[in-house]
């Protein structure tokens, strides 16, 4: 019957209970949608970086990344790329010849990274072809085609079919130059792709390198359920002369970002739950003070303090138990809707893209988020009820009974 009294007490002041339940609903929604939104941000950013740039893991000569020396290639790189492609859990691979150099138009020059690629494999690994916004993806031009980013094209003041000259050191240390013609322009949220990379065909680049058909980088994309760290360890065990690194090592800022993001979610959880706790304390305190005489009577006739305490706490749990399902349902609906249509942030697209984010985000949350938030609300309700319940049991029955 104490549970029944507690339940009925919840509905004594419907307006006040509705306000608390409303704040629980809004709090849960804000928390889950905020989490979904941040997840969307992270997913989009990481997917962009992994799918269009670093891949799941890469292989280099251990010394290569120190100064991108053209002589520090992967021995039998193309064969190794072919072999890895057959490993379980590996989806696609590609090998690249990479060197740092200069790109010059008739009006301007810029330092870039020249990436000699196999267009077909590259399209499978980084979906580079999907980023074309002007021209074609290495098609319609048989001699020395080049694909560059939109920002780089703007910087060099060039357009499709413009001629550019790439200057770099070959394997013998000679300064070499080769003319290319712009066949396609790509646009990506990745700053590197947009303004720092120039893509040419591997076989065109090999002609100028005096280095044979050697590659400097193998990029590997794994299946979604595969842990790339296992494959990295496998490669490093087998080919000790090379160095395989997962995206976490290649782009440590991503791992840091992921960690910071997880922590920020907990901070968000604590902030919202604190606000909720204060709301609950306030409401339950009012409920206790309003019922001073009744509580005094209950204690006078023989209701012990444990039961009084329990009754106030249960009332609060009921309040949250009614609000929580609504909050979860509204959150689920919102996430489901925006997961399909996306949140259009195109008004801020320029700023977002400069940081590597996409302008349309697709929020999502895992089932864990709903469970964590539900548990968080119940704990908050209990914590929020402690002070009012303590005030209730501290009432002196004689004084409480004479309270007007």
């Amino acid at each position, binding site marked *: *019957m*104490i549970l*029944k*009294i507690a339940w*009925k*007490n919840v*509905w*004594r002041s419907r307006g006040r209970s509705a306000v608390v339940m409303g704040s629980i609903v809004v709090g849960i929604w804000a928390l889950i949608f905020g989490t979904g939104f941040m997840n969307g941000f992270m997913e989009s950013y990481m997917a962009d970086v992994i799918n269009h740039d670093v891949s799941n893991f890469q292989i280099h000569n251990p010394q290569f990344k120190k100064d991108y020396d053209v002589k520090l290639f992967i021995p039998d790189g193309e064969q190794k790329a072919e072999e890895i492609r057959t490993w379980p859990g590996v989806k696609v691979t590609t090998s690249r010849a990479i060197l740092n150099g200069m790109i010059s138009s008739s009006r301007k020059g810029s330092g870039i990274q020249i990436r000699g690629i196999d267009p077909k494999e590259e399209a499978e690994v980084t979906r580079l072809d999907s980023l074309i916004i002007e021209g074609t993806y290495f098609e319609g031009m048989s001699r020395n085609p080049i694909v560059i980013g939109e920002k780089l094209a703007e910087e060099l003041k060039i357009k499709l079919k413009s001629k550019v000259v790439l200057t770099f050191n070959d394997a013998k240390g000679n300064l070499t130059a080769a003319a290319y013609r712009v066949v396609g322009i790509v646009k990506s949220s990745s700053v590197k792709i947009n303004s720092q990379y120039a893509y040419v065909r591997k076989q065109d680049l090999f002609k100028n390198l005096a280095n044979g058909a050697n590659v400097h980088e193998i990029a590997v994309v794994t299946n979604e359920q595969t842990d790339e760290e296992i494959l990295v360890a496998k490669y490093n065990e087998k080919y000790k002369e090379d160095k395989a690194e997962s995206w976490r090592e290649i782009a440590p800022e991503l791992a840091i970002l992921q960690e910071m993001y997880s922590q920020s979610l907990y901070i968000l959880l604590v902030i919202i739950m604190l606000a909720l706790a204060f709301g609950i304390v306030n409401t339950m305190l009012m409920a206790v003070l309003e019922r001073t*005489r*009744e509580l005094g*009577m*209950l*204690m*006078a*006739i*023989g*209701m*012990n*303090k444990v*039961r009084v305490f329990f009754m106030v706490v249960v009332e609060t749990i009921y309040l949250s138990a009614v609000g929580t399902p609504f909050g979860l349902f509204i959150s689920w609906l919102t996430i489901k809707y925006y997961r399909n249509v996306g949140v259009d942030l195109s008004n801020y697209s320029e700023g977002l893209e400069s940081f590597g984010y996409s302008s349309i985000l697709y929020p999502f949350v895992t089932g864990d988020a709903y469970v964590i938030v539900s548990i968080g609300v119940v704990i908050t309700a209990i914590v929020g009820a402690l002070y009012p319940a303590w005030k209730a049991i501290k009432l002196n*029955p*004689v004084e409480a*009974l004479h309270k007007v």
Partner: protein
Amino acid sequence: MSIIKVENITKIYNETKVPVHALNGISFEIQEGEFTAIVGPSGCGKTTLLNILGGLDHPTEGRVEIAKTDITGMKDKDLIDFRLNNIGFVFQAYNLIPVLTTLENVEFIMLLQKVDKKKRIERAMNLLREMGIADKANQRPSELSGGQQQRVAVARALASKPNFILADEPTANLDSVSTTNLLDMMAKMNKEENETFVFSTHDQRVIDKARRVITLVDGTILSDETK
């Protein structure tokens, strides 16, 4: 059999600042089945005495024994259990639980005593019948008149099978018809069930009905008359 035994109790409020002597060395005994009114002008110490008899307050000095148990030095926690099983309370403002029905209000105290549900309902219905309000069993207190609410309060007080009922100005908020009805009910319970009632009151109708009247003045017993 002595249900209440009060020996030389005093109650002083604000002992350390400006002491107020609410009770000054009061002693009396109340036997089982008595119908006693404690009367006196405002501020004479009636409520203080009732609070002490009800185990809601402690005397500064003296000794209170209820049903052969000395409650004077009992801890608050133990007093709550003692009150639950030994004392029935009727308050001036009825103090029913507004969210429960009449039946549930009467049943509630037995729930605290951990009485079986079937027995609870049976006893609660019997008491409501005796109080003449069985037809109101499923109504909320807000749907009852003041007199009916006070009868529910009496039924609740009796439900725990206490040693005595302590009623603080039970008729103060009632009209004359309700007062008469309530007093008749309580007198009947006293006569037929040998229930012990102790009232504090100003109401002459209660005083007239009481078989013993203890008059307090300035915290002392001015007279103790049995009719």
